[in-house]
């Protein structure tokens, strides 16, 4: 087995390395801070690997192009930030409806609108969930350091290919631009999921939208032996439009169930000192770095503080949050928005009144001092 490679890179570059490791073959994107380095590095690296990179005219076109390339049988990705992610919502819904494996990176910056382009935020958590119209399920993941970012990026491709679904990688400006050590594992170390392709022979009726018993739908590449239809309309098992109530109901249920029923399998998280913790910090992305600093610092002084770091944000791992926070006296959600994951944690636990928010929304990274000040307030010690 080849040796692992150690690099000192930005998070955006770590994302590129992970995508290539996972087998990325096609990328379409549009420049936008703070995700641009993903496109820049792929413009160099993809053709070296025989893949294809294209800079499209906007983010709408970018997500549409990757859907087209996924249908010809390739692993695909795009990358953007808030304003571009808003434009991608239309195509994201299409990928949900047509069940197209693809990965969408959103390196979050401050919003709404053009907002705070070069500064950090975690304000797109709910946009990732409900940004595209209509009822649906979605997968979104994040990470707080480059090694984890590498792993969740590979996992995003694996989930996309397993469940025929778009997967959103919700990183943030600090993770995207920060440089730190990354160890790229040798090929084969992390298992990769390849797309399930149909074994139905040419000339035999193939149903691109008929789930197997395990819920998976074998695909057939455009250009192959099976000619079928793909549409954003509700459709039957051949992919042709249908407004038959049974078909509509069945498809919507399938789209939601295939994600929700596998929520456990997709739930990634890390825990630090949770066992006897009286106060639990719940955090994710770059906020979790500051939260971990506070926890380690306080533990050294004998305080019973713990951290639950979420890597899967959608489907929200409700039962895990509930179980881990059961015996805690206080739960403090640390995030850089006005309390998005806070709402979810409040819903998940028995007593929503024990859940507090430690946030920062001025474009600066939330610091351990920010978190400590909130903790003092919660503990009745004043600032």
């Amino acid at each position, binding site marked *: 087995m080849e040796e692992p490679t150690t690099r000192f890179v930005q998070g955006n570059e770590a994302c590129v390395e992970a995508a290539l490791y996972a087998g990325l073959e096609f990328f379409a994107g549009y420049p936008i801070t703070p995700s641009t380095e993903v496109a820049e590095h792929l413009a160099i690296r993809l053709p070296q690997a025989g893949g294809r990179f294209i800079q499209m005219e906007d983010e709408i076109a970018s997500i549409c192009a990757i859907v087209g390339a996924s249908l010809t049988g390739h692993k*695909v990705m795009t990358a953007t930030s808030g304003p571009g992610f808003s434009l991608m919502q239309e195509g994201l819904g299409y990928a949900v409806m047509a069940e197209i494996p693809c990965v969408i990176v959103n390196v979050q910056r401050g919003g709404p609108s053009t907002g705070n382009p070069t500064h950090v935020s975690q304000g797109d958590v709910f946009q990732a969930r409900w940004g595209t119209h209509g009822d649906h399920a979605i997968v979104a993941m994040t990470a707080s350091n480059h090694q984890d970012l590498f792993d969740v990026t590979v996992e995003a491709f694996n989930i996309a290919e397993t469940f025929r679904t778009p997967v959103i990688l919700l990183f943030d400006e600090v993770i995207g631009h920060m440089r730190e050590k990354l160890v790229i594992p040798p090929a084969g170390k992390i298992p990769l999921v390849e797309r399930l392709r149909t074994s139905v022979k040419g000339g035999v009726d193939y149903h691109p939208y008929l789930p197997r018993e395990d819920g998976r739908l074998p695909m057939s590449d*455009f250009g192959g032996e099976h000619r079928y239809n793909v549409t954003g309309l509700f459709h039957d098992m051949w992919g042709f439009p249908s407004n038959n109530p049974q078909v509509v109901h069945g498809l919507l249920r399938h789209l939601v169930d295939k994600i929700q029923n596998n929520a456990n399998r997709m739930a990634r998280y890390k825990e630090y000192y949770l066992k006897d913790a009286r106060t639990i910090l719940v955090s994710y992305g770059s906020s979790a770095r500051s939260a971990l600093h506070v926890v380690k610092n306080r533990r050294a002084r004998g305080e019973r503080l713990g951290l639950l770091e979420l890597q899967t944000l959608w489907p929200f791992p409700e039962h895990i949050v509930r179980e881990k926070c059961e015996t805690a006296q206080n739960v403090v959600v640390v995030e850089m928005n006005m309390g998005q994951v806070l709402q979810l944690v409040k819903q998940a636990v028995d007593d929503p009144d024990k859940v507090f928010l430690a946030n920062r929304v001025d474009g600066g990274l939330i610091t351990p001092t920010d978190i400590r000040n909130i903790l003092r307030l919660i503990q009745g010690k004043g600032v």
Partner: protein
Amino acid sequence: MAVKDYLRERFFPHMWCPGCGHGTVLNGLLRAVEKLGMSKNEMVMVSGIGCSSRISGYVDFHTLHTLHGRALAFATGVKLSKPELTVLVPMGDGDALAIGGNHFIHAARRNIDITALVMNNRIYGMTGGQFSPMSGYGTSATTAPYSNIDHSFDVVELSKAAGATFVARTTAYHVQNMADIIRKAILHEGFSVVEVLTQCPTYFGRKNRMGGAVEMVKWLKDNTTPIGSKAKQENPELIERGVFVQKELPEYCNEYNKVIERATKGR
């Protein structure tokens, strides 16, 4: 292979209104494909939203029915990721030039080997007769009840300026000519635009007192003329039809192959 072998006959009768020109375009398109003797497995049709876009449901190719205006963006992903496929993109005038205008000019600029058909009936039919970017000044539509003040594009001039390397115009009256032009457009290596003037008796015709389908088709016959004809010199109001541009320039997928060569050189 016979023309009907390219059809998904189980979906007929089609959903277009009586007298609509879109079925004629389907006919011309399939005659072109038949003449080229293309295999169904090598053909991909990518369409957007609107009456015209439903054409993809009727052809037995790999078919991708996408979002309003975005067909060319999806098609770009299909073509660049698998350049050996032949990619056809039929669009309506609103689909191609209003909501999809940006994708249209950029696909032309890249000169990617895609054949774009603009089925221009000068109206939004599926939503019930609103004016399109091709309706033109002085026309009537449900959203232009006091006469339209929006000016229209010239698709041919727009395509030329944007860099398309094959640009042609034909009509739903000139069916043989349409099939011939579409055949040439498919054969052309690069971005091809074929504008097909077609009739919507249900909305454009009714709103603008142009009569039924027969009168509208006759209008197409009487108001168009071959490029540079004597009739055009005598009556500059006539709309020219034929092949306006056909030139060889580097095609995008071929150029990307060179990018891969440069990127992998010495590695």
